């Protein structure tokens, strides 16, 4: 038996290990359960939910780029009601922590959806204020500190669940947004969402994506994500969930050393569905090798003495 304690209690939740899967890249968890034992994950974040169901964007939604992926799904989802009736019951059976990712066009949307999801079966809410793929609201919330604080506050007031605010990287100063979320009452921060990017189809002489712009994810963005975790760790007192391009255990360790308490695997699930499990194993071995008795000893270790 390993001597490394992989579990941590954070925001009142006891995570059995620090590796979760990211919103929009894991459906509602059941699909990947056919391939791997998802109960071994630290947790699963649902696809982004909105009040009403959404059809998502028309046209091409995906474009691969060097070590990256552009997407403009546009928050296609069944809506919060259907999530609760049709999807949540199946998610619960997966026997891991469940985080519901929520989006809205207005403050009121956020309030209503948070209220509806104030359920015992859900472990936390992740507030997406940063989706670049919806016309109204979305990113605007995530790039204005005052709005970040307001949205956070609105959700906090509407739920008894711990609230994680997921920040947009498309800002001049990420620490400003992080501090705003913290003063809005956030229990934790998730960073980062995708970078805004695009691709041009030189055959059609048109943007490759139906929505022109898309969100860039994958290993390409890891250096930016890591920098933001590092910067934010120096400023806030709430835990940070690090994500953006994590594909190997080494990446996850980098994020934790930079200040992340938990990490999430997104795009890499597509390339290698085993990635999250391999990462848990790798983190454990790394701790053993470095004589760390608990995974929490890693958090922010590389910041010591800086």
């Amino acid at each position, binding site marked *: 038996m390993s001597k490394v304690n992989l579990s941590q209690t954070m925001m009142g939740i006891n995570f059995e290990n620090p590796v979760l899967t990211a919103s*929009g*890249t*894991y*459906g509602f968890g059941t*699909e*990947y359960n*056919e*391939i*791997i034992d998802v109960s071994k994950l630290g947790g699963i974040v649902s*696809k982004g939910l909105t009040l009403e169901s959404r*059809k*998502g964007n*028309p*046209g*091409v*939604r*995906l*474009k*691969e780029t060097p*070590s*990256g*992926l552009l*997407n403009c*799904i546009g928050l*296609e989802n069944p809506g919060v009601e259907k999530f609760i009736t049709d999807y949540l019951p199946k998610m619960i059976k997966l026997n891991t922590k469940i985080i519901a990712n929520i989006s809205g066009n207005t403050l009121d949307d956020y309030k209503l959806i948070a209220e509806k999801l104030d359920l015992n079966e859900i472990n936390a809410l992740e507030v997406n204020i940063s989706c670049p793929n919806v016309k109204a609201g979305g990113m605007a919330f995530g790039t204005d500190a005052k709005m970040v604080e307001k949205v956070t506050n609105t959700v906090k007031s509407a739920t008894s669940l711990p609230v994680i605010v997921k920040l947009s990287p498309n800002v001049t100063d990420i620490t400003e947004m992080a501090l705003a979320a913290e003063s809005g009452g956030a229990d934790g921060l998730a960073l980062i969402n995708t970078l805004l990017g695009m691709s041009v189809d030189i055959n059609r002489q048109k943007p490759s994506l139906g929505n022109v712009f898309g969100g860039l994810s*994958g*290993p390409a963005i890891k250096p930016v994500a890591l920098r933001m975790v590092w910067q934010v760790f120096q400023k806030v007192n709430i835990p940070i969930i690090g994500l953006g391009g994590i594909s190997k255990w080494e990446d996850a360790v980098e994020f934790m050393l930079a200040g992340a308490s938990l990490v999430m695997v997104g*795009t890499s*699930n*597509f*390339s*290698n*569905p*085993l990635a999250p499990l391999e990462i848990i194993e790798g983190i454990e071995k790394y701790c053993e090798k470095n004589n760390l008795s608990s995974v929490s000893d890693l958090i922010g270790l590389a910041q010591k003495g800086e």
Partner: protein
Amino acid sequence: MKLITAKVINQVKIAKDQFVLRLYCPDIVLAAKPGQFITLKIHEQPLLRRPFSIHYIDKEKGYLEIFYQVVGRTTKDLSNLSEDADVSLLGPLGNGFTLKENSKALLIGGGLGQAPLRFLATELKLLNTEVEVLLGARHEEGLKNLECFMDQTGNIHCATEDGSKGVKGFVTEVLPDIIKEFKPDIIYTCGPIPMLKAIKEIATKSQILCQISLEKTMACGIGVCLGCTCKSKNDEKYPKVCIDGPVFWAEGVDIDE
């Protein structure tokens, strides 16, 4: 659906840049149906897994074959694999063709759209369905794999754009005549968009059932990323090629881009 590391059994070069790769993966083979596909990955780069139709399977020997053309990085790397090399395989994926028994089926493949038709032809024959095959390509080089249909049918029609083999022109030019003679109950087709569009039109006019296999850039291949959409009459949802397809009833899908 399984994720496994499959070993290369062997690889045969069929024509310029076209190969048939045989992979040992008994668990996937057991579950596979014609029209389904697998996704594979060899190296860290490129990022995403790549989808390929299941071309042929041998349940007893536990292998499947893919028939592919070298077009970019993954297919280039594939073509360099030799015996015993490892390939990460996820599959079988997608819905597959609806198999009609005791009937007459016309299988139409354009370019690499031939790939899923061999497995289909084999299974149809087991169901006592009579099979004819119509294949199109730019040049006869693209039709070198047609012999793989020989066991299932004696009747293989060909069209090439440059007339180097079979009729000169597109498959759609000979299609009306074949329909008239063979009188198929159902058409199964896979290939380039303009071909699929034209076939859908002809099938609709002739009131013949028609199933179309589509291709689309995929990230997950299992329905979670919601990226591989196509259009349909259904206003509520964009169908996903990876799970609602790749095979669609012609009338159920808009072939537009």
